[in-house]
């Protein structure tokens, strides 16, 4: 049977989610394999090397770089407090000495007789990594981190901003077509993840930020409004580092596009549940999509969890979403995957899929389709 590999977004009602939590450099793992952890539990920590202060002792003392070592009051490796004497000239008969003080608390890292510079390294910067989701420590990567595993609802969005966040889900629109408007955002939503239908406007999102809403999951947002939120025009879709209290996850794309019904229904089913979300997106090689993870309690499990790594292609009957004009945002089922190339209106020759949308069959380039991976 004809099938085609097409990138798709996952909308899974029950799956095993494995999250790697890794330090940027080697450090210490603070939990053991098999431990059950809460999202805020610290699972690994390390110290990043502290900031460096460059002190040009030769210039400060008005001596040659080669004489700096002799003028030093301390050696490489010594700890100094801010204001302590770093170097001093001999002066004239012990008088008229010039000295140079340490600008920060730190350790002398190096003394150079070529440049006359002394490098003082400040205290290390501690870095801690939390578990992000509630789950089991399935694996320990020695000195680097852990893998947390949980059975959960797993939904991928297409684009997001803001990093990791968590809170209870609140559905604020009655249908997947409705927009999230300013009046729907109330102070009670502080710390919650709100879910809406087709669109959130700039004013409503700004209100969510003001009221410390933890996250917004919605169908669409206008591209040009991003600039006001981020403070710059987003040129490439690499996000996650923004300092935003309210992560924003778009399930469909830019513009006003109703949320896929499976996504909306699944989120609605778990209204009130605790979820972890991450707006980080990287659309490059090594693609990262924003995600919503709702860890499931035992009573919610149906025992039909699907492996998250499953890669499936589209085939006759597959549910797909059209991701480019002229049928952008519409969903339908694949009727046929003809093998031959077909000429589009643009005269581009492409492989197509025949899709049934609202009772009509249309030809769409396969690369303009997104598989909706459901379980």
């Amino acid at each position, binding site marked *: 049977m004809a099938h085609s590999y097409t990138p798709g977004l996952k909308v899974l009602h029950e799956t095993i989610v494995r999250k790697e939590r890794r330090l940027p450099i080697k450090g210490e793992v603070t939990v053991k394999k098999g431990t059950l952890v809460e999202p805020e539990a610290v699972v690994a920590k390390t110290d990043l090397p502290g900031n460096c202060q460059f002190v040009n002792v030769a210039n400060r003392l008005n001596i040659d770089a080669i004489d700096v070592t002799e003028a030093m009051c301390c050696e490489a490796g010594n700890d100094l407090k801010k204001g302590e004497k770093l170097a001093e000239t001999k002066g004239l008969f012990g008088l008229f000495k010039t000295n140079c003080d340490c600008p920060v608390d730190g350790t002398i890292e*190096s003394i150079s007789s070529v*440049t006359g510079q002394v*490098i003082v390294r400040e205290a290390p910067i501690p870095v801690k990594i939390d578990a992000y989701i509630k789950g089991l420590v399935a694996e320990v990567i020695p000195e680097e981190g852990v893998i947390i595993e949980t059975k959960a609802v797993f939904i991928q969005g297409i684009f997001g901003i803001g990093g990791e966040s968590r809170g209870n889900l609140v559905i604020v629109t009655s249908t997947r077509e409705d927009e999230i408007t300013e009046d729907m955002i109330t102070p009670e939503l502080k710390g919650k993840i709100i879910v809406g239908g087709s669109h959130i406007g700039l004013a409503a999102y700004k209100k969510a930020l003001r009221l410390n809403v933890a996250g917004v999951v919605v169908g669409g947002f206008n591209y040009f409004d991003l600039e006001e939120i981020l403070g710059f025009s987003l040129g490439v879709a690499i996000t996650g580092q923004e300092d935003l209290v309210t992560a924003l996850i778009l399930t469909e794309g830019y513009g006003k596009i109703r949320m896929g019904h499976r996504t909306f229904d699944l989120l609605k089913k778990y209204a009130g549940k605790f979820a972890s979300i991450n707006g980080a997106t990287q659309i490059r090689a090594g693609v990262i999509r924003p995600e919503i993870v709702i860890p499931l309690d035992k009573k919610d499990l149906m025992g039909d969890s699907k492996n998250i790594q499953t890669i499936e292609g589209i085939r006759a009957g597959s549910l797909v979403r059209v*991701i480019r004009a002229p049928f952008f945002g519409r969903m339908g089922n694949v009727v046929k995957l003809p093998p031959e190339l077909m000429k589009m209106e*643009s005269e*581009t020759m492409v492989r197509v899929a025949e899709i049934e949308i609202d009772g009509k069959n249309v030809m769409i380039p396969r690369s303009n389709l997104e598989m909706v991976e459901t379980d």
Partner: protein
Amino acid sequence: MKLKSILATDCGSTTTKAILIELKDGEYRLAVRGEAPTTVEAPFEDVTKGVLNAVMEVEELSNRKLLDGDNIISPQVGNQGVDVYVSTSSAGGGLQMMVAGVVKSMSGESAERAALGAGSIVMDVLASNDGRKSHEKISRIRQLRPDMILLSGGIDGGTTKHVVELAEILAAANPKPRLGLDFKLPVIYAGNKKAVKDIEKTLGSITDLDITENIRPVLERENLKPSRDKIHDLFMEHVMQQAPGYKKLMSWTHAPIMPTPGAVGSLIEMIAREENITVVGVDIGGATTDIFSVFEKQFNRTVSANLGMSYSICNVLAEAKLKNVLRWVPFNIDEKELTNRIGNKMIRPTTVPQSLEELVLEQAIAREALRLSFVQHKAFAVNLKGVQKERTISDAFEQSSSGESLVNMMDLDLLVGSGGVLSHAPRREQSARMLIDSFLPEGITKLAVDSIFMMPQLGVLANIDNKDIAENSRQAALEVFHKDCLIHLGTCLAPVGQARGDVEVLRAELIFPSGEKSSYIIKNGELILVKCPHEPIQAVLTPGKGMDIGAGKNEKIETTLYGGVVGLIFDGRGRPLNFSKDENERIKNLQKWSKQMNEYPSLEGII
């Protein structure tokens, strides 16, 4: 040994492309091409799987056995296997470097040129005078985590202080490579040789330090080759060793794996040298646009890291501004709707334009991406800066100075385009228009596109050092480049000068190979296409009053022109292009030019 067959692959970030070249009737020709998704990332994490899949497609299409299990059969025996296998790679983000120099516009720029020429992406240029404080430079190094650093600075025998200061900054940052937490970062030192001992003392123990010749031994001369070669060596020894599956791939190839843009650049350099011409080559991809040029026998490459047609399409919009994109669109469109559409292309980068309207919009954005990349290239491809020039009294009235752009569009002989939007445009006329509108060639310029983007594979083939196969491989690369790789679009003839109103800017008298004669009068603002194949056409070109077609103002030229799949394109629109401020007039002109070029024949039915 006369090579009978060559297999070459290019492992790109998303697709691995394989070509099979065969010796047939005494000449090398492309036999077949296959492709498969690249498998560097999870869940496969082994580049050779994608290579094998692409080769398998070649096997099927060529109906010859190339693989024995997981091995490429070599040498060729009967109808099985190939004599040579080579590969390029840009998978996993390519080769990402940081360079450092004492003075940003001098050793910093030379180091950047060396790194770009070797095919790397330059993430940042650190310099003593770049205005950043030492701690800012340190955090930048830590944040970027390059694959390699090239450190240069100072002329031989000059002061060592500044370059050692830069080394101290690197040491304080204690950089870690992007791949492999347990490895030391490769650092190449190519600066003042007097500072070598101090550099070794500062960086020797914490990095994998390699010393090579000074990149700028004297102010007046650049010495880029030793650094470029060293970058290639370290790319193989360090970066490729860490990338998944590359050890195995390296054991298969008959020549070192080259970074993809390095291979393309060396091919363009070779063509320019062999044919004694000036060349501009462009490869517009999804995330980046690479431009290569050879003017005055000097090769330059730039990478516009965030000017591309999918992943970075919104950056094109941000840098070019909406109004510059819209000036190429021959119909009215709601601006909010347009920005959302472009945003959606960024987040779904693999989509293709189904409707004609979408195609027109995509090609409008491509024009701006190409234009901006070329602006960056012109600013980088310059004479050496900081060089003292002796001036005579006759120079006193000229404004020339060091650091002038080498790019002279009137001198340009060949403009080659590649990358999806140019190579796969549904009509070649569209590719020609995009190249002309964005690069604005002046005088007489041949236009071509790379048919299926095989310049990387041909580039690595042309660069084999092994004496037994070097000559044959080079010959094969050149033959395939001319016969199968390049699609000659034709020639653009663009007179330059001040013309106002409906005046004649060029008169052309042509004698075709059949003996047929024709003459054309090109008026100001006109774009005329003369359809003719890639055959020699005798031409007498007489520029209009005050105009220049290559020999100087008002100077007539007798020359041989070549057509192509598009033909001869007479561009009387002037340089730079001026768009009418009146919206209706602008749209009318765009439609007129499109119609003349047969660019979007069915658009009339839509608008």
